[in-house]
């Protein structure tokens, strides 16, 4: 896979802007889009993430080595699947009923959100991360490697090489990682899980992930699968 020099962020909201700030600080070129015109986000980007280039979705995707989806989950189908063809894509999205509405209308209850995102963008490689920490924690907790009390993010996907590359990217963005090579394990950090909204160090995150089946949420998921 190609080296990551330019990061493309789709979604210029709370999370998208924080990720743009972190990527700029890490030395990447950053391109970012909202749902409307470039003009609509220009002032926001030049003020909150100076150095990032506001663009259209098309303009973000064509020039970036890595794409981050930071839009409400209920909107991902507004992006044509072929736009992301052949791309390495980070899914930072969660089902969030306050913005997405009723779950059954957005997601098929039989699988996880990232699997459905992968199914839709079937010519792209999806890796899930950045989803389980609140946006201001992402902003405030980012630290250089080796610093004390550095926090960790869960990185998971079906493509081994892609997970490793994204994990390395996450590390440059300011976080340790816990990796899994199974996209469906994204469920372990979805809303309702013990990890959603939590900022933990690597050993603590690893510990919760390793014992996921014993958590209340893990038990619930297991029971649903069994049923």
């Amino acid at each position, binding site marked *: 896979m190609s080296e990551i020099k330019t990061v493309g962020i789709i979604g210029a*909201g709370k999370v998208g802007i924080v990720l743009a700030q972190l990527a700029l600080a890490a030395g990447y070129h950053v391109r970012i889009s909202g749902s409307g015109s470039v003009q609509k986000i220009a002032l*926001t980007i030049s*003020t*909150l993430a100076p150095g990032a280039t506001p663009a259209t979705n098309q303009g973000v995707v064509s020039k970036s080595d890595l794409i981050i989806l930071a839009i409400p989950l*209920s909107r991902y189908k507004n992006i044509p699947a072929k736009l992301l063809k052949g791309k390495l894509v980070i899914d930072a999205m969660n089902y969030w*009923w306050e*913005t997405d509405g009723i779950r059954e209308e957005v997601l098929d209850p039989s699988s996880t959100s990232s699997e459905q995102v992968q199914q839709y963008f079937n010519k792209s490689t999806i890796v899930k991360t950045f989803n389980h920490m609140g946006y201001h924690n992402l902003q*405030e907790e980012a630290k250089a490697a080796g610093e004390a009390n550095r926090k960790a993010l869960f990185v998971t996907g079906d493509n081994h090489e892609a997970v490793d590359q994204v994990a390395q990217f996450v590390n440059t963005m300011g976080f340790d990682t816990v990796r899994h090579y199974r996209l469906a394990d994204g469920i372990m950090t979805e809303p309702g*899980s013990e990890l*959603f909204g939590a900022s933990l160090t690597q050993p603590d995150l690893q510990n919760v992930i390793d014992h996921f089946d014993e958590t209340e949420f893990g038990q619930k998921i297991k029971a649903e699968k069994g049923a």
Partner: protein
Amino acid sequence: MVNVDKLQFGLETFGDIVAKEDGELLTAGQSIRQIVKEGELADKLGIDVIGVGEHHRPDYSVSSPEVVLGAIASVTKQIKLATAVTVLSSDNPVRVYERFATLEGLSQGRAQVMLGRGSFTESFPLFGYDLIDYDDLFNEKLEMYSQLIKEKPITWDGKFTQSLKDQDVYPKTDYDGLETYIGIGGSPESIIRAARYGYKVILAIIGGQADRFVPYLDLYKKAAAQYNMPVYPVAVHSHGFIADDEDEAVEVAWKNIKANFDRIGLTRGWAPMSREQFDGETQSGSFYVGNPEHVAQRIARTINLLDLGRFDLVYGAGNQTAAQRERMIELYGTKVIPRVKEILSGEAVA
């Protein structure tokens, strides 16, 4: 530089259910009457604003804040009466105008409208709205509201709202019209929208450090300039608890704020609040907790940092006793506010 003489201090409550000394909960009605009493106390102490939230849940007593504010109006003289916030998206802008214009008359010009998208969602299904229209609802209703408060006959073509043809709304207000704030969470788009309408801005800082909002103020000013609109001093609202003793304040706040956040988190899928998180919030984040000196130092820092015109402390989270709530209000009025002003008038800000 902060203009200390013009600084305003407010109190806001979401109408949490009050507890008795033995931990048993009061009824919603008793909790509502407690708020009226607290509004009266705040007025006597010279606090500038009392804000009451709107919630449609069992853990809060107030779903109709203007009614409560009307009662407070009748027993107070100076204090401004605000909603914190009015969930405009699931309300009817004509009704919003009518209720506040009534409150404005009752209180001789002390009504303050704080509009927001709200961080709770119960009101959407309750009033027949679909959350998926969250943004569109707010945009349309804000536009309608901004026409209504001109207090002239209005012609309006609505999608989520009723259409009107040259219709007038009543009562008219006697003063300078309704004072309006927009409550803002963390979305840059909201702050630009507030600037575009020329409304005042109140930032809800309910997690993390106030420092991250510094660039937002820049955005607010630039947006106002772009739309040729006035720039007002910005207000902030954050949670807090004050007691005479530092340790007591921390323990009461930890128990109550945690219970409150965890209960809300449960319905949204957040992990429970950890002690580390809480301590981070009280030391350098958005919870103003401690003895009067500690809280005053932290409020002064935030006011200075963000060049604020107003600071509102959200009180009563969880199930506090009436005594704890009232003592907190007394300490805020008699110790914290004067001390914040003193700190900010002096040179050194810690």
